[in-house]
């Protein structure tokens, strides 16, 4: 049975639709990279997992099941226990994820409860505990603060860690180190990871599976190597083609033309259709249903045809 299951989730804000029927499955111990542009809905999906959406967000449809519990239909007490036992979050801005008015040690102790070993947990993220324990968050560097945040999130050995671009605000030097730390700690504790990012190749390198979001839906979802190496959905292919790391020296990077959509209601067809070089009339009017191509689940009317003719031609 899967640890996390998001089914046809639709989240609306006052005038915009953040999620437009997103589906995601995550098995115990699995690491999944959730990739998408700003505004694709990945942060909303991440927050929805813990029912941490702002008050203005409205769940219009769908459900989120975490460890067998329907997250959106739980009474407050059960929700609190669910979060406490099963969830950890790491955020983008490391300094903002620590309370500026409390010393690091006191904050960690608050999470650990009585009898918690602050030194042990700081040691796990390789921080010299005596100095860090007494420090206030503003006295730490971004990398150190993020490691403290990771220690706090992993302190309870949660079953699922949601990491919302935890390395985006860090120096490139410490970026790798922090990512390594998260993945090794998670592997040790048997924690599943949902890693949100807009860096497809970086995510594909570390995660078992990759889910690509576009226009509030997961458009392609499959084993990391397959999604990056043999993308089926034209959007994934375009993303892979726009990555500087993957391009051979001397070749041009191909940008994805156009802008991501801002939805106000359900997309009438495929949200990518206006930017898609393969779009046919059907794509504009009919919402694609997930189809299975090779090992991937893809939301594309022409997935099977395109898979046969080797998609990287998108970039031509």
């Amino acid at each position, binding site marked *: 049975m899967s640890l996390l299951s998001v089914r046809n989730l639709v989240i609306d804000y006052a005038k915009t639709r953040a999620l437009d029927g997103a589906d995601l499955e995550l098995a115990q111990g699995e690491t999944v990279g959730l990739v998408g542009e700003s505004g694709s809905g990945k942060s909303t999906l991440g927050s929805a997992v*813990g029912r*941490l959406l*702002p*008050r203005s967000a409205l769940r219009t449809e769908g459900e989120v099941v975490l460890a067998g519990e329907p997250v959106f239909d739980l009474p407050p007490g059960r929700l*609190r*226990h669910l*979060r*406490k*036992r099963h*969830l*950890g*979050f790491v*955020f983008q*801005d490391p300094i*903002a*994820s*620590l*309370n*500026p*008015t*409390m010393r690091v040690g006191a*904050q960690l102790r*608050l*999470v650990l409860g009585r009898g918690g070993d602050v030194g042990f947990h700081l040691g796990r993220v390789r921080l010299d505990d005596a100095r860090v324990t007494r420090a206030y968050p503003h006295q730490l560097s*971004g990398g150190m603060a993020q490691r403290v*945040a990771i220690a*706090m*999130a992993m*302190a*309870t050995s949660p079953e699922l860690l949601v990491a919302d671009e935890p390395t985006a*605000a*860090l*120096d490139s030097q410490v970026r790798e180190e922090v990512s390594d730390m998260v993945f090794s700690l998670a592997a040790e504790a048997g924690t599943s990871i949902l890693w949100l990012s807009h860096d497809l190749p970086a995510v594909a390198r570390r995660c078992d599976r990759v889910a690509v979001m576009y226009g509030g839906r997961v458009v392609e979802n499959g084993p990391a190597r397959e999604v990056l190496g043999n993308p089926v959905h034209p959007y994934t292919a375009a993303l892979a083609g726009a990555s500087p790391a993957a391009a051979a020296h001397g070749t041009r990077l191909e940008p994805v033309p156009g802008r991501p959509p801002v939805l106000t209601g359900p997309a009438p067809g495929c949200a990518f259709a206006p930017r898609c070089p393969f779009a046919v009339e059907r794509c504009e009017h009919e919402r694609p249903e997930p189809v299975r191509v090779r090992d991937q689940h893809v939301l594309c009317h022409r997935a099977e045809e395109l898979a046969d003719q080797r998609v990287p031609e998108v970039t031509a």
Partner: protein
Amino acid sequence: MKLDKLSVGGLGCLVVLVLFALGGLAGLGGDPDAIVGPRLQPPGPGWWLGTDNLGRSVLPRVMEGVGTTLLLSSIAVLLTAALSATFGIIAGYRGGYLNELVMRLVEVLYSFPAIVLAILVAAVLGPGQLAALASIVLVTIPLMTRLVRAAAVAVSQRDYVTSAVISGARLPRVLGRHVLPNVAGTIAVQGTYALSVGIAVEGGLSFLGFGVQPPQASLGVLIQQGGTYMIAAPWLILGPGVVLVVAILAINVVGDGLRDRLEPRETRSLT
């Protein structure tokens, strides 16, 4: 914590005023109710600030008045701070109908001019110290609650609050350990402004006869009594008047310093 020179000066003034009031309490200026000499005498030996219309020495009366006014305002402001912090934080954190309820109630209070509200309270409770206290609380509560709420709304969206919620913290801990300390600066700054408003409200209400009742002295009472003899005996109104101005000015200056210190404009970049 460092304050700028002006604020340190203001703080110094306040300390002097408190010492002055404490000195009065210790009887350094003499008995505020004793008749010591002829009526309406200008300052001189035996009555360093002159005598009033009953022949009482003005100095001990001003000392008592400062004490009464400061004590009354301080208690009222502490009450305001406690109530505003509670309602502002809950409204800001929970939002929804609770927020609407608190904000609409506060706006009703806010729509009354301060002194009109104070007179209304005095009319209901009857003139006296309690009326002055309640008036100050009701006059200062709207602004502070609104600002605490605004600060709490911002703090509630911070990642560390979300982290605390995920880690299974109950509401009292989230509010007490994470939200309250981070809006404490706002409460402190607004507290100083509320204190100066409180002193002004007490002065106004007592001046009109609805606040502190003679023979007990407060700055408002003294100014009211002195006003009658402003031409014949200007020292009667000068002493308490100057003290009132100094107190309010000093408190506002300290408040400005605190605000600059505790609520710096956030220019820090993300990384």
